[in-house]
């Protein structure tokens, strides 16, 4: 689609011609995020360098009635920053300055294009760090983290993005700058900071974030436990939490995931085991010592067949390397995979894993499980070969069944990856029409014309009606040409 010349004129006037890309070659790199199954080359890409310019871009889009999609580093896993037809892609990469790191106030104030890991890097000389650590932290930006309410492996103890945010500055579709939250985290009025966090760029565009920095823990210990069956391992997770210990991280892998990770990273995992648990404890030395002993006893009691405590930071890093490279490692097992992101109450872990195994067998597609067990946040990886006729549809079908299972046991279709375009269908399973209508009304309160990231995050009621029909008939209807996720 050829962009509106009047819009282009306004954008160039506000940003300068070099910050407005329209050629096919220049726009091509922005055609997808990390959910590469969905691609659409943007018609216009803008690269503002200041918050003022972001305001101008949004005013221009509002004025011309043009949809606009914000994008950080493009590491999202649900297609949240997928360009929309006839729209502007607002890339925040040039707003990449760390404005302030103040160890006395334990905070950092950054522009949205600063990467997650850069914040911790800037805080480290002061003995501080930024706690949320999504797996893409080397590349993902804080603006994207706010939009997705990103998690990571240390959420159970150290929280999600929302728990570590103090203030955000957000530009509305009207081009108005809102300050939400404050340096203390307390602000008068409704907690709009929480509403905007995780809103997937549907309500406003983050142009600045002030985050809480935490003191680096004085002591960290990592314990690895092998189990002869998945159920014992899953039960051990609940036992650890029930004992009154809150681990910094509690991660589980099943045999396929663990073996793939070991083959990939050579990290010393016990490949003959059926499940692996990584339990990290952090804090003050005496407390960590006490908890470590307790966890050790508990895991043995739960039937762990082997236990190993990392002797030093190097070994700790090696043990984590397998977990952290599990997605690419599993990716080598098949030409393609889908990564699911359901969260369930922990008490259902063992049953849900067993049921996923049954669904996997029935579908004839292998599933590897690697997940944040402490949070009950599952990441089943469905392996398939897109070159095989019908395989994509079968994989999507299996994915939908897994997410429906998560909802059925009281969980959610997305724990941390967001809905984007990928989970619009499964959202219909989780929410009724009343909730969906409320979401659309909230959206209209911020963006009456529906210009910000349209079509993402919340399905239309019509779509849910279609989805319901499709679900009833399983994967047998010839609807596979329709984008369902």
């Amino acid at each position, binding site marked *: 689609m050829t962009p509106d010349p009047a819009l282009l004129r306004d954008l160039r006037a506000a940003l300068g011609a070099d910050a407005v890309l329209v050629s096919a070659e220049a726009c091509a790199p922005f055609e997808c995020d990390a959910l590469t199954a969905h691609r659409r080359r943007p018609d216009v890409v803008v690269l503002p360098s200041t918050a003022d310019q972001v305001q101008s871009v949004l005013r221009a889009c509002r004025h011309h009635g043009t949809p606009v999609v914000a994008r950080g580093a493009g590491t999202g896993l649900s297609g949240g920053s997928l360009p929309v037809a006839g729209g502007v892609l607002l890339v925040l990469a040039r707003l990449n300055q760390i404005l302030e790191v103040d160890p006395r106030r334990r905070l950092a104030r950054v522009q949205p294009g600063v990467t997650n890991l850069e914040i911790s890097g800037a805080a480290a000389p002061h003995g501080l760090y930024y706690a949320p650590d999504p797996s893409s932290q080397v590349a993902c930006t804080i603006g994207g983290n706010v939009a997705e309410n990103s998690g990571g492996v240390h959420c159970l103890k150290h929280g999600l993005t929302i728990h570590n945010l103090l203030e955000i500055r957000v530009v509305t579709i009207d081009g108005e700058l809102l300050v939400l939250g404050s340096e203390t985290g307390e602000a008068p009025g409704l907690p*709009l900071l929480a509403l905007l966090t995780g809103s997937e760029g549907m309500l406003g565009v983050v142009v600045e974030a002030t985050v809480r920095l935490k003191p680096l823990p004085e002591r960290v210990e990592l314990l690895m436990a092998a189990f002869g069956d998945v159920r014992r391992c899953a039960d051990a997770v609940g036992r650890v939490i029930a004992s009154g210990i809150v681990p910094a991280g509690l991660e589980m892998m099943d045999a396929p995931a663990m073996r793939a990770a070991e083959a990939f990273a050579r990290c010393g995992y016990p490949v003959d085991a059926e499940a692996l648990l990584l339990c990290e404890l952090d804090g003050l030395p005496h407390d960590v010592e006490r908890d470590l002993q307790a966890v050790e006893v508990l895991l043995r009691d739960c039937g762990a067949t082997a236990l190993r405590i990392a002797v030093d930071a190097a070994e700790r890093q090696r043990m984590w390397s397998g977990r952290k490279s599990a997605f690419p490692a599993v990716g080598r097992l098949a030409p393609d995979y889908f990564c699911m992101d359901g969260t369930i109450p922990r008490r259902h872990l063992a049953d849900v894993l067993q049921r996923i195994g049954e669904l996997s067998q029935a579908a004839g597609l292998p599933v590897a499980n690697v997940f944040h067990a402490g949070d009950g946040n599952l990441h089943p990886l469905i392996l398939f070969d897109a070159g095989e006729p019908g395989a994509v549809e079968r994989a999507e079908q299996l994915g939908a069944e897994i997410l429906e299972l998560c909802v059925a046991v009281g969980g959610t279709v997305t*724990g941390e990856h967001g809905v984007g375009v990928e989970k619009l269908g499964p959202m219909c399973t989780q929410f009724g029409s009343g909730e969906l209508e409320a979401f659309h009304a909230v959206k209209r309160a911020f963006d009456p014309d529906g210009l910000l990231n349209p079509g993402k995050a919340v399905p239309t009621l019509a779509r849910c009606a279609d989805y319901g029909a499709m679900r009833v008939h399983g994967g047998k209807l010839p609807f596979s040409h329709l984008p369902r996720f």
Partner: protein
Amino acid sequence: MDRDATDDLLAQVRDAATRGVALRIVGGDTKRFYGRAIDGVPLVTRGHTGIVRHDPAELVLTARGGTPLAEVEARLAAHGQRLPFEPPHFGTDATLGGTVAAGLAGPARAWAGPLRDYVLGVRVLTGNGRVLRFGGEVMKNVAGYDVARLMAGSLGVLGVLLDVSLKVLPRAAAERTMALELDEAQALEHVASLARSALPLSASNWIDGRLYLRFEGSMATLDAVAARIGGELLPDCGSFWASLREQTHPFFAGEQPLWRCTVPGLAAPLPLENGPLVEWNGMQRWYRCAAGATACDAAAAAGGHATLFRQVCTTEEVFTPLAAPLLRLHRELKRVFDPAGILNPGRMYAGV
């Protein structure tokens, strides 16, 4: 007691919406003083009560809005758990719904975070008579907008909280409080430096030249901390911190207006009289002064805001006014959830 009164409440709200009658949502009526004074037919939630689910291994508790806060805390305590934000009761009848709607936290706020951080899910009765469920009972959930957390501190202006699911945490193994003789400026500096160390400082308070520091952890940790901190050990520290949480400390006695100034912890002492009592590592400072404009100006100059927390009945603004675009959004959101404007209308701001 265990009673699901959703249908009763729904009928009352629908009736009020039809007739355009304002409702004043009442749990234990312990925080009536908080927010702008409003009129309205009481919508009493106390009959909608009971803990729906608490599996200690999940670190989640779900209870009906009218459940007494004391019942919730007793259940958690029986399993060695707690509400980490230490909510004030302000009376024996405080309910869980009222606690979440008020959004207040006690002495542990700076250590544990605000109440909002612990809200996982809600079932809410909106002003247009719909029962909606947002969030859930799991730790991580990014499906849909976070309307559940939006309810934290919403003062009932968006909906009646029917059920609330909260993240809960284990209680500390032990606590210890030390007292140091310091003036206000020294205390603010000292407490800030402690907060950026890894020490488990779970609460702080400064009043009348004394800084009180509460630490939590294993006994061995507390011994190590005490050796590092020095100062005088405060016996019976539980009742001391409870007197701050519940505002039964003598500082809070009497009829003068009570102002709450929320400012950056390291902000210099504010030029206000009759105070302060300082909490939350300097972020929350209480004053007993009459002149509202002075408190608001002083807090704003320090980079924060002021709230007229307790007053003898007034119709004036009690919260710091919002910037115009923010106030407009508040009114829009009010219309989304309560189009007829019947739920606690005006409790937060005019038109909200």
